[in-house]
């Protein structure tokens, strides 16, 4: 008993670890990332504090005075500045006097600072005044602070007195890293684009599923059933090709077919139609080809599943029906289709999931175009988080969009698990050593 357990655990460990790390963890992390505003701008590791112009703008509504103060430089007489002043090799009296009577003073503008400097005992020249004031010019604008304390310390040195609430506001406005937020879901719920994409997705999944993954697959299975075995296997081999062919080449062939110098254009040219890009010409034709491209791949699974289900029907049923004078349609309607109820449910479940999630083919063929007319949900998530033209990749929003699919995926696959013979699979092992 014990040895078998140990061995079992050791042998299943690699699978468990790999699946846990690269499959289950991403499922959970999708949910975690969906609650953040991670993007290229915030980075994915902890951020820093930086008073950028954008941060100042954010502060303007709440704290206009502070925002105005932060964006202007201030002049602070501090030790750093004094050391720099020494290095400039001006008259030593300047440094001594500034240290003795002005150390720690803060001037709100260059004018005030220079007025003080002009009044120094050794009478600096105009040029020297400028040089001196420059060394004390202090600003937090565009400086990067690793943590909140460093930022607050710098602000305090510049003479900003902040209450704890103000500190909180300032630190939130200046933080460059990602934060926890539920905004992604609000964006998804409120955006017009998302509604359109949802409609696109529904249309795409329903039509492809109905016409090809189930409909055309049925046609293939039934027609190959009425053929000699060798001919049937040729057709099955041909229709399995789209699934076997790597997707990049498969889509390349379709691009060639529909391109404005490609097969359809040349062929239609024979009848006097001017060449055009049939793939991206209009939303309608783009959808037509997107569904064809995916449907041709999808049909093969249904074809194989339905074919083997039809093969399981005893031949005698067909012979009997023919003796009774049934025509082909009646054979299909009363013998074949009733046997295919479960296989059709199985394929529908399975392919709904994969159609919802897969965007390879659309990405490679239309990229969601023309415009955004063939953009589906999974492709939109990919475009949001991993590839877009604005350059700011919004991981958080993309993860939230993916999370919708993940939740749908988990629910559908749990249903799938309940419906399809799970309990029959868990038989007890026979050897208990």
């Amino acid at each position: 008993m014990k040895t078998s357990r140990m061995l079992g655990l050791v042998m299943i460990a690699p699978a468990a670890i790999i699946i846990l790390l690269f499959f289950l963890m991403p499922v959970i992390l999708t949910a975690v990332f969906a609650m953040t505003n991670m993007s290229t701008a915030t980075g994915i590791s902890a951020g820093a504090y930086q008073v950028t112009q954008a941060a100042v703008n954010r502060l303007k509504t709440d704290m206009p005075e502070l925002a105005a103060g932060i964006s202007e430089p201030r002049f602070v007489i501090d030790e750093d500045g004094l050391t720099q002043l020494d290095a400039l090799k001006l008259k030593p009296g300047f440094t001594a006097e500034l240290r003795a009577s002005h150390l720690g003073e803060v001037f709100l503008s260059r004018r005030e600072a220079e007025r003080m400097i002009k009044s120094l005992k050794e009478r600096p020249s105009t040029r020297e005044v400028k040089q001196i004031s420059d060394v004390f010019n202090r600003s937090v604008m565009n400086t990067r602070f690793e943590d909140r304390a460093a930022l607050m310390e710098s602000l305090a040195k510049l003479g900003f007195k902040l209450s704890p609430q103000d500190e909180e506001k300032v630190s939130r406005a200046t933080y460059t890293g990602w934060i926890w937020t539920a905004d992604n879901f609000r964006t998804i719920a409120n955006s017009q684009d998302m509604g359109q994409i949802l409609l696109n997705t529904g249309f795409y999944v329903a039509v492809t599923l109905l016409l090809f993954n189930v409909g055309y697959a049925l046609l293939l299975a039934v027609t190959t059933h009425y053929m000699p075995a060798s001919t049937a296997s040729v057709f099955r081999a041909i229709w399995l090709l789209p699934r076997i062919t790597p997707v990049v080449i498969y889509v390349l062939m379709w691009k060639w077919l529909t391109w404005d110098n490609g097969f359809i254009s040349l062929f239609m040219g024979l009848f006097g139609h001017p060449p055009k890009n049939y793939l991206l010409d209009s939303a309608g034709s783009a959808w037509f080809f997107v569904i064809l491209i995916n449907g041709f791949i999808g049909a093969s699974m249904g074809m194989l599943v339905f074919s083997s289900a039809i093969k399981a029907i005893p031949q005698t049923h067909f012979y009997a029906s023919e003796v009774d004078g049934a025509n082909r349609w009646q054979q299909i309607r009363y013998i074949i289709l009733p046997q295919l109820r479960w296989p059709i449910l199985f394929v529908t479940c399975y392919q709904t999931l994969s159609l919802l999630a897969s965007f390879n083919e659309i990405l490679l063929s239309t990229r969601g175009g023309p415009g955004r007319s063939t953009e589906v949900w999974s492709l939109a998530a990919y475009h949001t988080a991993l590839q877009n033209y604005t350059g700011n990749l919004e991981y958080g929003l993309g993860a939230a969009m993916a999370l919708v699919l993940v939740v749908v995926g988990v629910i559908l696959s749990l249903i799938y698990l309940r419906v399809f013979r799970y309990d029959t699979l868990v038989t007890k092992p026979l050897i208990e050593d």
Partner: protein
Amino acid sequence: MAEKTAVPTNPASANFSGLPVIGLLTLLSLPLAVMYAYLFIDTISNSQGGSLVPSEFTLEHWRFLWETRPGKPNIWLVTLNTVIFTCCITAVTLTVSSMAGYVLSRLNVPARGFFLAGVMVLHAFPSVTLIIAIFIVLQYLGLYNSLIGVILVKAAIDLPLGIWLMKGFYDTVPWEIEMAGVVDGASRFTVWRRLVLPQIKPAVMALGLFSFLSGWSEFILPQVLAPGARVQVLSVYLAGLIADDNNFDFGTFKAVGVFYVVPVLILYAFFQKHLMNIYGGGTKG
């Protein structure tokens, strides 16, 4: 696939001819046939503008084999990457799922039912949706833009199917073989290694073939997780060529495509039956 051949011309029907349906399917299959035929024809020929009939034989489209395009990695480096990528995925999937499948089929481990249910749910689960999270995880782990990272991810995604298939195949091996081994004093590990594994050689073969093809064809994972020039695989390389609007040249694209697809077609031609079994059992796509 083996039909009963009692009625040689048409097994299903004595009253009807098969010709109309054959005609119909031939018509429907034409677009595929045309696309594949021209995939090969266009790589070794040029045709006059506006004509579908090739006018001359040429090898210029195959120049990419000995000339590296500016800004693109060397094709042989890319091929080597693809071979490493694919072989590692196959090796990992085969080893890990043949062990885990055996455990789930035969050994009494705690939470066995849970594992089984988990594997089945994950098998149906659309894994592409995880790509955003995986992208960020690999960045954290420092495995972004490395072959090892994308290999592990791809293997993890293929594993549930592999474990599921292997479990199914182990279930068909008679218990008596193991009983005999155990009675003769062999450990369970030895029994698995020496007695059971040889029984399911066809399964190992089928799964190996499947992983190889799925790894060779994979596009979106390497595209997102390892797009760099040094770790590029053929699918990413070809997609990059096609996306480059400045040099639009279908002849070259198709030549690279044929170079890329030939191993797949050869394997498919030889092992069609094995593959039909797996693809019929429900894979992603």
